[in-house]
């Protein structure tokens, strides 16, 4: 965020919303107090389904996934009598199971939504009964309509978006907390218009016609006007209170509903996080295509061979007992349509039998695994933020594994690296620097015999304090006083008076939207200029013990174009003054430099000093307005404020007119403290091979100094600064920079044969600092390419003074040009676009509102949590997910190949010896659960090892756990194991009495044991849960085989009992499992010892260091 945050953040171009109003051509006309049925009612509905629509809609939603359609197609195909491979019931089972599980999950979620909807809709609110004078009756929320007048008491939640008409405060002030809306916990001030407030206090009701814009999702914008007593009153965002907010510190408030139900701003903003797909899932598609080709290849092979067989035996078919071509009762061929058709039918049947090679269940397994991983990330105490009591949250459930492959981290500064708790540190007043702050007890004010103390005291400079308190006649002291008056008055802070335990003491709490303003108000209070009260018309300031009232005649709010705000104050001595504060760049443009050059120069020098200390600076100025000047301004201001169209622009131009010839009062320096552990976190991330870029709205100097304090920049780095004001100069400096990086590379590569690693191996490291102004000329032009080249050569990049969209542009610069994964982390509304642009967006639950969190994929409390999140959980997630996908491909391929080999001995008719129930249960039950549990629970390395050796993170960045080579290796293993599983029993039982069902049971059991043994061999950490699932699954398979063979109507009745009674069966099972596993075991043993990966070495260190410790402890005791 900039020096101060705009009070209306994320506001779209006002002219755009006005244009929208225009184009829409229509206003919403609301008669106050007359409920109008023509607009949406206040009932909300977040539930997706009703009892009636659940089945069709849920099925429709589910079948939007391509894999389900594939599944469905196979099932439908199987229903054709000619192609039916499985029995009807059996073939529908897996699809039905999957649909059922998903439907139950959806239904459960929807019932919860229904329940919360019902609770919400049946809440009661006091609504003005029509045709009565001021009688408020309780009414359910769902029955409230646009036009109703609603009365809300303190701490109650607002039922709809309402325009305030009157409040308990005589000036029409109301405070609301918007935590439900945007996550901000501080109070916001809203006003009822004086006209309605007066009308209400006179007659007890308000009548009028309200015209407002049509419903939109802009929380920070609202335009309307109210015709009351023949007058037109304009209404703005400060006059509307939104559904979901809570009324605070205001006894009651009365408002008229303008938007209800689904048209309220909170409901319009209620969209889920954007859906992203993980890298692994995208890569998985490539393997799916390969498997599809394999599938089609197998189907073609089977059907062509079947055709050849038929061709060779064409003449024998009639008398062959096992074919029996003719049906003699009809004299026609039975179920035989000629060779061509037969090939086609065989092909379709082959598709049904072998479809399992594309593991549909994998998608469901992946979702379950991600759910489990998300649970464990959320439960991790290392990601729990003590101060905000917030846990880690997975908002997007489908990109967990991307956390293990991040190459670039883009970080916001304020609130992300820093705490966003501002503390006033020093001031430069009239060219004098006061920066030797001492802790002070703060000053208090006596009001009605009670002692009011500001909640926080800042460090005060004794010299300054002395100056203020002693000689008030002094010209210098007057300026100092003006400076602090400006700090106390020129803001939007609301002082709240809180009770303390001591009845004589009260606490003043400054509530406001900008932490900078709060810091300045507390600073003024500490020096004795205490803001005590604020209404819409005036402020009361205790000036060194003397309570004075200052009328606020006008307020020009902060906007990002002007980068300053101003108030016009009617002082007790009847003068009218303009106080301005703003960013130095905007302030020096409007200063009357000719008068006080020395002062300006000195202030500039101090500003430079402050910002190089890492402080946030503001310049404060003032001007006394003459009577004619004031009257001219007042006329324009009133006209502009009641305008409905183009009000924003009008007000801006008035502000620009009056904010000129400013007399500079001084400047302030505010410290924005670094969060805990930020330098260490950045160091870890960089060691893990990630590039950390800082994107900030702050000034170059401030950004650089923060860079130093969080150890991103060090003194031995070579800095390249790009800070230009035109395209040509940008181009020049980029070319220079490129030349320097080349030079640097050549210089450092002399000693090193690997140019890529040069920047790390050599002592000097390049740092690039780019300014937002230059980015205007670089981003989205042909210069981008060069910036990219320079930036990727540098190990540190700092971008300062960047606008929100530029942040997204920088992320896109990297994302579109490389395959590297990007992560953006931020806390404010200005980070939203960057968070959405990056592959992974992380939101910080910070001081600033919840918008970043709402847009993010993951949210957490502190920047430093990024280290355990990426290095530990990201690493695990990637590792687990990569393995799980490959394993699923492998296990299904093994099974399908076993089925395929059998086809070669059935005259290519796709009979399966394994019962159809076992073939269907294979993916659903026999092999699914262990992989899910392993995907959730297995850890290759412990948390402490991963944190101690950040380089281990590189395994994800290098795609070590999921790539084409591993896929091919897995497929070769599947090939070998299927051959073993099939052919050992084949040769052992050749020319024997073995029946189909018996042999099928052996093949099924052997495949299940082999693939589960493969998993068992790759599991790294065996805890009791994994034991239960792996061995339990094998046991469950045996039980299922027994159950299936106990059903007398199936041909395989009794087969497993019979075959298990033979010694040969057990001998075969043993040799199959061993022979199938030998290559895997040998390869594993060989590669782990002779070409160990980083992770393998980490595992050894883990195991043997613990052992060594035990040994050393043992020897110590001996």
């Amino acid at each position, binding site marked *: 965020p900039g020096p101060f945050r705009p009070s209306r953040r994320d506001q779209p171009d006002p002219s755009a919303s006005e244009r929208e109003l225009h184009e829409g051509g229509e206003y919403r006309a609301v008669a106050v107090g007359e409920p109008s049925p023509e607009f949406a009612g206040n009932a909300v509905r977040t539930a997706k389904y009703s009892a009636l629509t659940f089945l069709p809609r849920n099925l429709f939603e589910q079948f939007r996934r391509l894999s389900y359609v594939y599944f469905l197609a196979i099932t439908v195909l199987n229903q054709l009598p000619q192609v039916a491979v499985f029995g009807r019931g059996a073939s529908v089972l897996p699809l039905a199971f999957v649909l059922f599980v998903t439907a139950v999950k959806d239904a459960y979620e929807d019932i919860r939504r229904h329940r919360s909807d019902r609770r919400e809709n049946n809440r009661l609110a006091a609504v003005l009964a029509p045709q009565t004078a001021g009688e408020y009756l309780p009414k359910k929320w769902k029955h409230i309509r646009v036009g109703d007048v609603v009365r809300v008491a303190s701490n109650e939640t607002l039922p709809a978006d309402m325009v305030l008409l009157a409040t308990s405060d005589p000036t029409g002030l109301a405070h609301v907390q918007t935590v439900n809306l945007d996550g901000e916990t501080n109070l916001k001030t809203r006003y009822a218009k004086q006209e309605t407030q007066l009308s209400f206090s006179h007659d007890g009701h308000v009548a009028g016609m309200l015209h407002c814009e049509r419903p939109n999702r802009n929380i920070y914008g609202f335009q309307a006007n109210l015709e009351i007593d023949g007058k037109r009153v304009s209404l703005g965002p400060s006059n509307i209170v939104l559904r979901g907010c809570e009324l605070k510190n205001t006894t009651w408030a009365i408002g008229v509903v303008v938007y209800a139900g689904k048209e309220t701003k909170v409901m319009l903003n209620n969209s889920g996080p954007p859906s992203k797909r993980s890298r692994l899932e995208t890569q998985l598609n490539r393997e799916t295509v390969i498997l599809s080709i394999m599938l089609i290849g197998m189907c073609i092979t089977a059907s062509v061979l079947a055709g050849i067989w038929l061709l060779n035996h064409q003449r024998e078919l*009639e*008398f*062959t*007992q*096992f*074919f*029996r071509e*003719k*049906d*003699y*009762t009809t004299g026609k061929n039975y*179920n035989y349509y000629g060779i061509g058709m037969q090939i086609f039918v065989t092909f379709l049947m082959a598709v049904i039998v072998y479809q399992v090679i594309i593991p549909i269940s994998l998608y469901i397994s992946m979702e379950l695994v991600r759910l489990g991983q998300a649970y464990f990330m959320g*439960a*991790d*105490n290392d990601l*729990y933020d003590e101060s905000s009591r917030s846990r880690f949250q997975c908002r997007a459930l489908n990109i967990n594994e991307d956390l293990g492959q991040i190459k670039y981290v883009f970080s916001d500064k304020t609130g992300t690296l820093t705490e966003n708790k501002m503390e006033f540190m020093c001031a430069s007043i009239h060219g004098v620097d006061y920066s030797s702050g001492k802790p002070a007890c703060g000053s208090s004010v006596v009001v009605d015999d009670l002692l009011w103390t500001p909640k926080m005291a800042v460090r005060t400079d004794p010299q300054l304090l002395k100056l203020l308190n002693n000689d008030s006649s002094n010209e210098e002291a007057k300026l100092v006083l003006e400076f602090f008056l400006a700090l106390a008055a020129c803001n939007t802070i609301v002082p709240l008076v809180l009770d303390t335990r001591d009845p004589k003491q009260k606490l003043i709490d400054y509530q406001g939207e900008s932490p900078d303003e709060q810091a300045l108000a507390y600073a003024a209070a500490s020096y004795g200029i205490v803001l005590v009260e604020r209404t819409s018309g005036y402020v009361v300031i205790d000036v060194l013990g003397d309570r004075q009232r200052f009328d606020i005649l006008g307020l020009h709010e902060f906007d990002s174009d002007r980068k300053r705000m101003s108030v016009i104050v009617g002082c007790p001595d009847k003068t009218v003054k303009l106080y301005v504060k703003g960013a130095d760049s905007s302030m020096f443009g409007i200063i009357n430099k000719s008068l006080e050059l020395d002062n300006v120069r000195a202030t500039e020098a101090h500003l430079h000093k402050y910002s190089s200390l890492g402080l946030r600076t503001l310049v404060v100025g003032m001007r006394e307005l003459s009577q004619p000047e004031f009257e001219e301004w007042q006329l324009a201001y009133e006209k502009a404020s009641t305008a409905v169209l183009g009000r924003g622009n009008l007000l801006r131009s008035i502000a620009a007119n009056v904010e000129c010839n400013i007399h500079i009062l001084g400047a302030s320096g505010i410290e924005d403290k670094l969060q805990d552990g930020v330098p260490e976190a950045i160091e870890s991330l960089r060691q893990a091979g990630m590039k950390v870029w800082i994107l900030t709205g702050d000034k170059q100097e401030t950004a650089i100094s923060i860079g130093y304090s969080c150890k991103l920049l060090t003194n031995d780095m070579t800095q390249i600064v790009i800070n230009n004001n035109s395209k040509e100069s940008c181009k020049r400096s980029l070319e220079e920079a490129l030349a320097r990086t080349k030079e640097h590379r050549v210089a450092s590569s002399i000693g090193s044969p690997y140019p890529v690693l040069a920047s790390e191996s050599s002592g000097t490291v390049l740092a690039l600092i780019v300014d937002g102004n230059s980015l205007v000329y670089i981003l989205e032009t042909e210069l981008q390419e060069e910036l990219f080249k320079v930036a990727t050569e540098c190990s540190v990049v700092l971008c300062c003074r960047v606008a929100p969209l530029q942040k997204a542009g920088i992320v896109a610069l990297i994302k579109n040009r490389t395959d590297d994964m990007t992560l953006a982390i931020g806390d404010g509304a200005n980070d939203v676009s960057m968070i959405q642009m990056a592959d992974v967006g992380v939101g910080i639950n910070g001081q600033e509102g919840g918008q970043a969190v709402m847009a993010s994929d993951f949210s957490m409390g502190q920047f430093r949590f990024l280290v355990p999140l990426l290095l530990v959980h990201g690493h695990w997630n990637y590792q687990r997910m990569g393995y799980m996908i490959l394993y699923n491909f492998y296990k299904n391929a093994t099974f399908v190949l076993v089925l395929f080999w059998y086809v070669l*001995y*059935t005259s290519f008719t796709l009979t399966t*010896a394994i019962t159809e129930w076992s073939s269907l249960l294979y993916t659903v039950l026999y092999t699914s659960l262990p992989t899910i549990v392993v995907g959730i629970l297995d850890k290759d390395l412990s948390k402490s090892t991963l944190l101690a050796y950040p380089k281990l993170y590189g395994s994800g960045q290098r795609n070590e756990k999921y790539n084409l080579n591993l896929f091919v290796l897995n497929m070769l293993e599947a090939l070998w194991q299927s051959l073993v599983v099939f052919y*050992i029993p*084949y*040769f*052992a039982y*050749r*020319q*024997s*009495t*073995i*029946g*189909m069902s*018996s*042999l*099928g049971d052996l093949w099924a059991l052997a495949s299940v044991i082999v693939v589960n043994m493969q998993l068992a061999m790759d599991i790294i*950490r*065996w*805890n*009791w849960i994994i034991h239960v699932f792996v061995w339990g699954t094998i046991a469950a398979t045996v039980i299922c085989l027994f159950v299936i063979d106990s059903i*007398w*109507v*199936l*041909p395989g*009745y*009794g087969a497993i009992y*019979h075959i298990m009674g*033979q010694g*040969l069966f057990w*001998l075969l099972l043993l*040799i199959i499992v*061993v*022979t199938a596993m*030998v290559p895997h*075991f040998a390869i594993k*043993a*060989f590669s782990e*010892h*002779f070409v160990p990966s980083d992770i393998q070495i980490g*595992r050894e260190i883990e*195991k*043997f*260091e613990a052992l060594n410790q035990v040994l050393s402890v043992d020897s110590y005791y001996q």
Partner: protein
Amino acid sequence: MPAYSKFTQQELPACKPLLTPEIVIAAFALIGALFVPIGLASLHASRQVVELVHRYDASCVPVDDKVGFIQNSRTDKTCTVTMTVPKYMKSPIHVYYLIDGFYQNHRRYVRSRSDKQLRYKSAAHLTSDCVPEGDTADHAPIVPCGLVAWSLFNDTYTVRVNGVVTQVNKKDIAWKSDKNNKFGKNIYPSNFQKGRLIGGATLNESIPLSEQEDLIVWMRTAALPTFRKLYGRIEKDINANDNVTVVIQNNYNTYSFGGSKALVLSTASWIGGKNNFIGIAYLTIGGLCLSLAMGFLVLYMVKRRYVS
């Protein structure tokens, strides 16, 4: 701070096996040491088995038109084969028929049966899976229906040892579970083998299906196209150099699909019939594992990497 639990923090006590050189060598050596004896024992058991195989499909048909010969119900299909027993055969001696090229696992064939009909009288009409051998021309259900039953093997063997007729016991050749539960005790064959094309044996309509053991054995469809099925047992020892003469009624048509038939006399052992493969497989894998153990031992010694 939320309460610490080993489960939520993923710190459950766990065992982390590592493939250290010792473990790898030990595992391979152990498997080798286990497999070689098993292999030797299996080979030994297989060698104990005495097996006589005599293929008779070609020699029992004196004419060229083999299909015509076999389909003609009036030709005399008696055929005599003589074998000399090389080694003492201990009873029980299993008599098998071995058929080659008969796809009992053909898709058309394997589903052409009605298991419900075999067990329940009321299910006699459930013949929809059995087409074209489901109903007779006048729509009466065939029991047992389907190609599997229809193609029942119908060669018969009469065995003489040294000229003396020796009883071949055909009791208890089928699985008990099939006789007790799968084939009904009150189901009698009807309309069986009455169609235009004779597939194989006829059934005695006065014997219930649960007692038709040849049918029960036949209906346990073979897994592979070359299979043997139990015909009966000779419960008498046969000495070495005894002459075994078998009079075969060569009825079954394997000629139309180019298959072959053989008669098998075999003793049994704990690994079943004669089967050298399993012993050789065990020896091969055992030997492979032993050599892998040696190989890894050498590798580890040559290129030692000190674990941490």
